[in-house]
C-alpha cells in the first residue's frame, strides 16, 4: 500500500467513515427490541403459543452449495451481493458456493419461467434448474407475488409450495423457507402498502406452518426487519430501505443481509486490538495477535482476523440519513515513549501518529479490509453475472427452443460459462480468507 500521510485523505478511509462494523450492527440488532408502532404491529410475534416452531437458524457446513429461488427480491440480490459477501467472509474455511435462481415476478408455480410454454413448463423449469444447481442448502422465498391475490390466494400458495418442495425433495438439500419482505411505506405518489402487508401476514403464517410440518428451517424477513433498529414501517422521510417499496436499495440490502447472515450463524465480533508496548501484552477481539515483540524504535506483531474482509455500508442515496451504526477496526497501542510513530503493514506505511494518538487508537487498518471486501463483492457480482448467462442465456429461442435448428450450434458456448464461474469462485475463496498482517510500529526520527 502507498504511504498515507493523512488518514483523512485516503479513499477507503473516507469510505470507512460510513463503515458499519458488523459486530456493532449485530450486537444492536440482536439486543435491541425496536419500538414498534402503527403497521409494525402487524409483524409482531404471534401471541398465540404454537405447539411446534420451526428452527429459525441455519447451520453452514463444509462445501455447502446454497441455491436461492424466488422472485425479484432474490434476483436483485445480484445487484449488491451483500448477503453472499457476508456469508463468504463469515465462513472462509467452509468454501461455500452460491447460485442465485431468482426470477422476476415468479411464484411457487414457476409462473415467470414458462417462456413460450404454459404453466407446467414454468414449474418444470424451476425444478430442473434448481436440481441442476445441485443445492445442499435450498433457500426458497416465495409468497410476495402470491400475496397480491389476498386471503384467497393462501390455500393455492400452500398447495403450490408443497408441490414444489415435494418435487425438489430428491435433492436432499436442507430447505430454508424465507418469508417475503413486507412492503415499505413510502410517500405519495407511491401507494400505501398497508393492506398488502396485512395480507402478507397470512402468507408469513402459512410459510411458518409449512416449515413446521416439513421440519425445515424458517427465516422470517418480517422478523429481520423488526430487529433492525430503524422503524421499518414508518421510516423517517429521509431514509429508505427500498427503491420502490418492494425492492431494496443498497443500504437496505446491506442491513437486511447482515441480519439474515446472523440467522445463518455468522458471528462478527468487534475488531479491537489493544497492545501494551511496555508490558508486551495484547488484548483482542475479532482478531488474534501473535509474535508480539519489541523493536529498536517500537513494537512489532502479527494479526490474523477472525473472519474475512467485511464491506462498508453503502452511502444512502438520500441526504442526511441518520448515522445508524458506528464502529471500525480499532488498533490501540499504549506504553509508547513520546514521539511520532509510523505504522507499517507488511512493510508498507499506513499512518503516522503521535504516541498519545496511538494510545487513543487508530482505525487506519479499516481501509485495506474494506478494499479487499469490495474486491470480493465485485468478484461475486462477476461470478453471478456469468452464472446468469449460464442459466438464463439470451436468445434461448435460437439456442434451445423452437429455432434451435438455426442457431442451436451456438448452444455449445453456454456450458463454456461453467469453467469461468469456477475460476471466479477460486478468486472468491482467496479473497474471503481472513486478513493476515505483520504490523510494525516505529518511531520517526
Amino acid at each position, binding site marked *: 500500500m502507498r504511504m498515507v500521510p493523512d488518514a483523512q485523505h485516503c479513499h477507503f478511509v473516507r469510505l470507512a467513515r460510513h463503515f458499519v462494523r458488523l459486530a456493532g450492527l449485530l450486537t444492536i440488532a440482536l439486543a435491541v427490541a425496536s419500538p414498534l408502532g402503527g403497521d409494525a404491529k402487524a409483524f409482531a410475534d404471534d401471541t398465540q403459543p404454537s405447539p411446534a416452531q420451526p428452527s429459525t437458524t441455519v447451520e453452514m457446513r463444509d462445501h455447502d452449495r446454497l441455491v436461492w429461488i424466488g*422472485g425479484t427480491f432474490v434476483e436483485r440480490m445480484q445487484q449488491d451481493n451483500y448477503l453472499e459477501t457476508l456469508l463468504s467472509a463469515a465462513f472462509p474455511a467452509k468454501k461455500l458456493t452460491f447460485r442465485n435462481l431468482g426470477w422476476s*415476478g415468479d411464484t411457487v408455480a414457476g*409462473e415467470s419461467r414458462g417462456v*413460450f410454454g404454459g404453466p407446467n413448463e414454468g414449474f418444470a423449469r424451476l425444478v430442473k434448474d434448481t436440481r441442476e444447481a445441485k443445492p445442499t442448502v435450498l433457500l426458497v422465498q416465495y409468497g410476495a407475488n402470491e400475496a*397480491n391475490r389476498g386471503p384467497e390466494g393462501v390455500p393455492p400458495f400452500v398447495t403450490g409450495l408443497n408441490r414444489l418442495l415435494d418435487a425438489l425433495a430428491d435433492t436432499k438439500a436442507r430447505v430454508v423457507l424465507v418469508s417475503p419482505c413486507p412492503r415499505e411505506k413510502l410517500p405519495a405518489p407511491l401507494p400505501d*402498502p398497508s393492506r398488502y402487508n396485512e395480507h402478507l401476514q397470512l402468507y408469513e403464517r402459512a410459510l411458518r406452518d409449512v416449515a413446521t410440518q416439513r421440519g425445515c428451517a424458517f427465516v422470517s424477513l418480517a422478523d429481520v426487519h423488526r430487529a433492525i433498529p430503524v422503524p421499518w414501517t414508518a421510516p423517517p422521510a429521509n431514509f429508505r430501505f427500498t427503491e420502490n417499496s418492494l425492492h431494496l436499495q443498497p443500504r437496505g440490502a446491506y442491513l437486511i443481509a447482515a441480519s439474515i447472515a446472523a440467522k445463518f450463524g455468522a458471528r462478527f465480533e468487534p475488531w479491537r486490538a489493544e497492545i501494551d508496548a511496555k508490558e508486551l501484552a495484547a488484548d483482542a477481539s475479532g482478531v488474534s495477535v501473535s509474535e508480539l515483540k519489541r523493536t529498536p524504535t517500537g513494537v512489532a506483531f502479527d494479526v490474523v482476523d477472525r473472519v474475512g474482509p467485511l464491506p462498508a455500508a453503502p452511502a444512502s442515496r438520500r441526504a442526511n440519513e441518520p448515522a445508524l451504526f458506528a464502529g471500525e477496526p480499532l488498533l490501540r497501542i499504549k506504553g509508547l515513549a513520546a514521539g511520532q510513530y509510523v505504522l507499517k503493514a507488511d512493510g508498507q506505511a499506513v499512518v503516522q501518529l503521535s504516541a498519545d494518538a496511538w494510545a487513543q487508537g487508530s482505525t487506519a487498518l479499516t481501509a485495506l479490509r474494506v478494499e479487499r471486501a469490495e474486491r470480493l463483492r465485485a468478484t461475486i457480482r462477476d461470478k453471478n453475472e456469468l452464472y446468469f448467462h449460464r442459466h438464463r442465456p*439470451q436468445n434461448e429461442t435460437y439456442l434451445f427452443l423452437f429455432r434451435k435448428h438455426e442457431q442451436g*450450434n451456438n448452444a455449445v458456448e453456454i456450458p463454456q460459462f461453467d469453467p469461468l464461474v469456477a475460476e471466479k469462485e477460486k478468486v472468491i475463496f482467496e479473497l474471503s480468507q481472513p486478513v493476515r498482517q505483520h504490523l510494525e510500529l516505529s518511531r520517526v526520527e
Partner: protein
Amino acid sequence: MSSNWSWARKLSVAGLVWFACGQLLAQGVPTKIPDPDPELERKTFEVPEGFEVNLWASDPLLAKPIHMNFDARGRLWVASSEVYPQIKPGQVASDKVIVLEDADRDGKAEKTSVFADGLLIPTGIAPGTDGAYVVNSTELLYLRDTDGDGKADQRQVVLSGFGTEDTHHLLHSLRWGHDGCLYMNQSIYIHSHVETPYGVKRLNGGGIWRFRPETLELDVLCYGFVNSWGHHFDAWGQSFATDGAYGEGINYVFPGSVFFTAVGAKRIVAGLNPGSPKHCGLEILSGRHLPADWQGTMVTNDFRAHRVCRFVVTEENSGYASRQEKEVIKSTHVAFRPIDVKMGPDGAIYIADWYNPIIQHGEVDFRDPRRDHVHGRIWRVTAKGRPLLNTAIRPDASIDELLSLLTVPEDWTRLWAKLLLKERDSGEVMPRLQTWVRALDPQDPNVEHHRLEALWLYEALDVPEPKLLDELAHSKDHRVRAAAQRTAAHWRTRLAGDIAAGLFAAGVKDEHPRVRLEAVRGLAEVGTPTAAATALQALNKPLDRFLDFALWQTARDLEPAWLPAVRDGSLDFGGNVDHLTFALKAVDSPGVVAPLLELIKQNKLPHDRVDGVLALIASLGGPKDLSAVLDLVLNQDADLPVASRASLLAGLADTTFRRKVQPDGDLARVKGALESPAPAVRAAAARAVGAWKLAAFRELLSQWATETDETKAPLQLREGAIDGLAGLGGAESIAPLEKIALAEGTAAVRARAIGALAGLDTPRAARATVQLLQARPATLEPGSIVADLLAQRAGPAALAAALKDAKLPADDAKLLLRSVQTSAAPTPELLAAIRAAGRLEGAGWKLTPELQAKLVAEVAANGDPQRGEIVYRRKQLQCTKCHAIGGAGGRVGPDLVSIGATAQIDYLVEALLDPAKKVKENYHSVVVETDAGKVITGIPLRETKTELVLRDAEDREIVIPVGNIEERKEGRSLMPDGSADTLTQAEVVDLVRFLSELGKGSQFAVGQARVARRWQTLAWSKEAQFVLNRTSYDSAAGEHDAFVWEPVYSRVVGDLPIADLPSFVVHQGNNPTTFVRTQLEVTTAGLVRLALGDVAGLAIWIDGKPTPPQSELTIDFAVGRHQVTLAVDQKLRKPPVRLEILDAPGSKAQLQAVTGK
C-alpha cells in the same frame, strides 16, 4: 480501416480456398463486403428534389447504434451494442450509451462522450432531465449523472423482469408520451414479468407498455406485433407503430388494440398498408424547417432494402388511411441499414444507420464473420435553402418560458417543455399554468391545440384538472375531443363522482367516430353493466373496422360485469336486441347461450340474424341448449330456410366432434330431418347420425352412400352419408366405404370414402388410395387424395406398404412427395416408397458445401434475374402458392418482397435447396396430435383458450379445439424438400439471382405505385366454355357456378403477363380470349382514377358493367369492394396488362388493391 474488414476482404478474395476451412464451411463466402468509407455510402443515396443528406456522426465515435433520442438541449443520446447478438463466454459486456452534440451547429457532431459503459445489448434509450432511461436486457435502468460531468455515476434498476429470449426483441423503442409517461415496446418472443407496487405485470409476446416513473404504474397500451420497432404520437396524441417483421406499413394503435401475433388473440386489427415491406423506427415530422407538405407525414425505415420511407397518413372514419410517398433516402449500399429516425434540434431529419451487411441473428450464425461490430453512422437530411432551427431549451429556462414553448410548431419542443415542467416545483407550475391557459387568445386558430397541450401538462404533472378536461371534451375540434376522452380514461378513478363515465357517455354519441372509439375504450375501464350498455350505444351510428374492434373488445373486457346482469335479468340493453346480440356474440362464453335462446324463443331476433345466433349457440351451448336448437331445426313450422336448417344441423354435429357434447333427449328425432325433401338437410342429418352414433340409421346411410344414380342420391347426400358412416364407425361401416373407395366412379366420392375409411381401417384405406392414384383422376391432386390418410398416426406406414410394387407416373409421384414432405410425419420409408413408385431415384439437389459455393459464385457471375422471375412464376414450381411478393400471393411462407435486400446469396441457396434448415420467425410449423388420433401440421396463426388456428401447407386455416389436442411438438418448414428438383442448375442460378434482387433497385422492388398485383384468371373448363358460349362475355364479369377463378400475380414491376393464361375460343372464328379480374377495396368513397395504359385488345367491366376501354378511367366508387374484369384478346394484344390506382384531384377517396392469395 479495421482489421476485421481487411480480413473479411482477404477471405472474399481467397474464395474457395477458404472453404477448405472445415469449421466455417456452413457460413458461406462473404459476398459484397463493402468499403466502409461513409462518403462512398453517401454517394449511393437518392433523395427527393430539394433535399440533401450529410454525415452527422460516424465510427469510430459511434459503433452499432440501435436506438436514439434527442434531449431537451438538443444532444443526441444513442444506445449502441457491439456485443449483439450474443455475449461470448468470457466477453465483458461493454456496450455503451453515447451522447453526441453539435454545439457549434455546423451540421456535424463534434463532441462525443460515453455516458455509460458496461451495458449488455441496450436496446432503448430515453433521456430524462438528469440522466437517461436505458434498457439493459432484463432491466430498465435509470442512469443518473449527479455531478454534471457527463458520465453516469448512479445506476438504479427501475423495473426488471423483461424477457431476453431473442436479443432483437428486447424491450425497445422508448418514447416519452404527451402524458409524461414512458412508452416502451417489446417484441413477439419476449415474456416479461415485472413486479410493481400494484402487482406483477405480465406481458407474454409483443406489445407496448405505458409506464409512469413517479408512481411506477405500468400498463399495456396494445398487444401483438412481431417486431414493433417504431412508435410515435401525432400532434393530437394518437399512436402509430411500425413493425420490422410483418408488412402492413403504418399501424394505428389505440388502447386495447390487438395486432398480429398477440398471444391468445381471437381477432386482430390490421395495418394501414397491407403488402408493404417491413419497417424499423417511426417519426412523425413537424417543424418549420421542413416544407408544408411534409408536416405530419411519417418516416420509417425499410432497413432490408436500404430505404428511408415516408407515408402520408390521413384521417379515415375512426382511424386512418396511409399511402407511401417517394423515399426520403434510397440506396443500393448493402450495409446501409437505417433503423431509427428522429427529428433533431435544427428541424432536420436524423437517421441512425446500423451499418451492417448482416441484419439478423436468427437465420445467420451468431458468429458469422461478416457481422459488423464496429461501424455506425448518423445521417442528417435537410431541405435545401430552408433555414435551420435551434430548438435547444436552456436548462435554466423559466416556467413561463417553458409554458410559452407549448405553442411552437415543433412537436419535440412542446414535448420537452412538458417534461421539463414536470421536474419543476409543481406548487409554482400550477398557478402559472392556470394563468397561461386563461390568457390564451380565443381567436388564435391553434387555440384548441394549445389548450390540449395544457391538458397534457396536467397529465404529465399527474394532477387531474376536471374543468379543462370537460371544456376540451366539448371542443369544436374532434381531435381534441378524442384526446380528452383518452385523458378522462387515464384520470378515471381520480375524478370525483361519475365525471369520467359522464364524459364517456357523451363521447359514445359524438358525431366523430374517433371520439366514439376513445369513449368506448374508456368505458372498458369502468367495469359496470351500465358502462357496457353505454358503450353499445356506439352501435346507433355506423361502425368501421377500428370502431368495430374497439367495441367488440370493450364488450369482452366488460363481460364479467354485464353478462351476469343479463342473465339475472337486471340488464337488457334498453331492450335493444342489436346491442344485446352484439355483446353476446363478442364473448366466447357459454353464459351467452341462455339469453340468446330466450331472444329466439320470444321471436325478438330479426330473421336474418337467427342463423348466426343459432350457430353461436351450437358452438357454445350445453346439451340442453343444443337440444333446443335441434328442436328448432326439426320444427317444420319454424320460419327457417332450408340452408339454415342444414348448416345448423351440421353445426350441431360439428360441436359434438369438437366439444364432445350432444343435444339432450331422444336423438332419434333427427329422423324428421332424414326424411326432409331437401338433400342438403338430409346430408347434414346423415352427419349428425354419425356424430351421435345413431346405429339405427346405418342401413339408410349405407344405401345413400353407395347409390350411384345421381337422381336418387345427389353428390352432397352421398358425401354426407359417407361422413355419417365414418362417424358411426365400426366394422359395419368399413365394407360400404371400401366398396365406394374401390368402385369406378366420381373421384371426389372415392377420395371422400378413402378419407372416411382412413380412420377405421388404415391399411384398406391405403390400398384404395394407391388404386385411386393410379387411376389418375384429372380433377384431384394427389395431395388432396392422401391428406386424410396421412393425418392418421398409422397412415404413412400403411401408405408405404401399399405402394410396394406399385407404379406411379413420375409427375404424380413428385406432387405426392411434395405433399408428404409438408405433412406431419414425412417418414423416410414413405418418401422412399413414393420415389420407388415413380422411379425418381437419383433426381434432386443435395446441398453440399462445395455445391453451395459453386452456386453462390454462379449466381453472382451469371444469374439473370429476368429469367429468374419467369422461373419463379412457373406454375409447376408453385412458389406463388405459398409466397407473396408485396402482399400478392400465398401466405404459407414469408412475403419475399425484400428478401434480396435481407438475405445473403448463400442463405437463399440454402433456403431453396434445404428449406428446413433455417426458418423465418413466425413460419415455424407445429405438429398437433388430437385425441381422435389425427395428426395435423401447420403454422400457428392464433391461439385462444379454446382454439388453435393453424395455416396448413395448402394455405387453409385449420381450427383445432384446444381441448382435443393431446400433444404438440415443433414441426419443420412447410416448404417441401425437393421444391427445386425439377430445375436445371441454370434455372436455380437465375431463380436465386431473382430472389437476391428482390427489394433492390426499381425493377425488383415494390415501389409506391398502387398497382393491382393479385389477379384472378378464368380457368378453362368445358362447363365454363359452355356458359360463355350460351351467353356472352358479360357473364365472365359476373359470378357463375361453372366458373373457377385461379389466382395469378403481377410481376414485381406491377404488370401481368397474359401470354400463358388460359383462353377461350367461345365461337368458331373468335380470337382466343383470356379473362382476368381484380378487386379494389374502397374505404372512403369518392372519385378514383384507374390507369390501364395501353388498352388495345381489352374489354373492361367495372362491377359487372361494361365500360368503354380508355387508358384512364375516372370512377366514383362507394365504400366497399369493387371488381374490375378484363377480357383480353390474345390475338390483338401481346403486352401485359396493368392497373394502377391514381388520385383524382380533390378527391378524398381511399382505396387499395386487394392482395393475398
